[in-house]
């Protein structure tokens, strides 16, 4: 299977790149959220679509994920929890990692890969735009 996939790799990367470009173009006008862009000076597989929730994003990440999951958009917190927050059953020096803690609360992976069409991507972006514009109302509704 890996040999067959290796034959397909170049075509897969081209399709990944098309999905990435769709996200990049579509998310440019959406406020409060940032697509983490690939450094295209280097060869890349465009494998993950990583976004950062900016300070003006109106919802917590967990609320954002809950809304996306309810719409069958299986976004993931990334990474969560960070490793130093996991339970350790052996002697260790507790780590105070402020930057890691901050990053671990702000990033999500959005759907990508072969199951995802450009139309799906448009739908995800449309929902994110909706969440930004109606965030306070959604939060109020969720907590009422």
């Amino acid at each position, binding site marked *: *299977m890996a040999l067959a996939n290796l034959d397909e790799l170049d075509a897969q990367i081209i399709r990944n790149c098309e999905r990435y470009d769709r996200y990049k173009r579509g998310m440019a006008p959406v406020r409060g959220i940032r697509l983490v862009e690939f450094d295209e000076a280097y060869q890349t597989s465009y494998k993950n679509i990583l976004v950062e929730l900016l300070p003006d994003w109106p919802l917590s990440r967990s609320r954002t994920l809950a809304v996306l999951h309810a719409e069958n958009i299986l976004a993931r917190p990334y990474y969560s929890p960070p490793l130093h927050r996991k*339970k*350790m*059953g*052996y002697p260790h020096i507790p780590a105070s990692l402020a930057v890691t803690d901050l990053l671990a609360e702000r990033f999500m992976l959005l759907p990508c890969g*072969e*199951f995802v069409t450009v139309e799906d991507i448009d739908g995800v972006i449309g929902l994110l735009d909706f969440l930004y514009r109606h965030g306070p109302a959604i939060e109020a509704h969720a907590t009422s």
Partner: protein
Amino acid sequence: MKTHKTGEKSFALFGALPAFEKPLPVAQLYFPSWERYEAAMRGIFERRYYTNQGPLALQLEEQLQQFLGVKHAICVANATIGLMMAAEALNLKGKVILPAFTFVASAQSLSWCGIEPAFCDVDPLTHHVTPANLEKCLDSSVSGIMGVNLWGGTCDLAAITEFARQQALPVYFDSAHAFGCVVDKVKVGNFGSAEVFSFHATKILNATEGGCVCTNDDDLAARLRNIRSGYGAGRPVDVLKTANGRMSEAQAAIALVSLEDFPENQRNNSRLRQSYEAGLNSIPGIRVVKPSGVSFSNYQYLVCEVDEKLLGFSRDVLLTLLKAENVICRRYFYPGLHRTVEYISKQQMGADLLPVTDHLCATCLQLPIGAMVTLEAVEAICDIVQRAHLVSELFQSVPTQK
């Protein structure tokens, strides 16, 4: 295939054509037909669900639980990682006692977990570990016992389990050789804290690579499932280490077909074994080892002991002459783990501390049994051994593999 010739010129070792045109392997190698394989793979591609505890892995676990009559069958990528996960889930530390007469993965699984293997000897007749063997390795740093079930048989499971209970030590079993075997109406997989099966291509239940850990302990099962995947699975419990031990859908698909075929494959092994017993047991110096401790065996291994004095030449000469005939038999196990480079310095073994293991490692030979072997092939192999015995003086100075 040629048979019933006599004299020096009838042996490939001395220039005759080999008895078999192609090498005849020892492994079980029962694979489904292309049509069944294709149908199973098509389902995976239609679902586009390839791994991460997919529907076929779940189905396999359910069917294994039913087949074995065990509460939890936790499928894994291979038996070695299953053994590692079992040691971790049982929280073993310090030393674990296990027989030196076993496959190297039994001990390597402990080394991966930072546990020191304490090697004991085995019974000369059954080749299995006994409470008396275990007792000699007991000390305060021992935290558990790994029993090993060999040749489609088992050690005396009741005696080993009772010994462990008396010592307040957990016991688990490497049952890579014993899938489908039965002890007093109970399937192997239900004994000790856990048992680990191999689904390697060489075994009767075949996922190409794979294995499973079986247990009737709900808490141990939860720990095993949380260790198996970094993402966790099932009831979340705290575990210290996680591993990517998941079984892929492709592995599970083949294992499901293989499970369906188990009765027929077991019957085929049984037929071949009967033929070997009829052909070999009358030859002086050859004893076909019986699977011990079980009322029903998978007969996935055909192992015989060679008595050099009676046969007229050594096990290693027999191996050499059979290999020349394209019979790819194996010294199994060789060497004893206490004499491997990985462990010899730590064990500080004298020349004769594990005399039975040393003797078995010098005299046991594994012969082909499985999908690639016909009754005609067994007859031909037995005929070669019989003829060689009759002219044993020809083989006195044959150089052998070290």
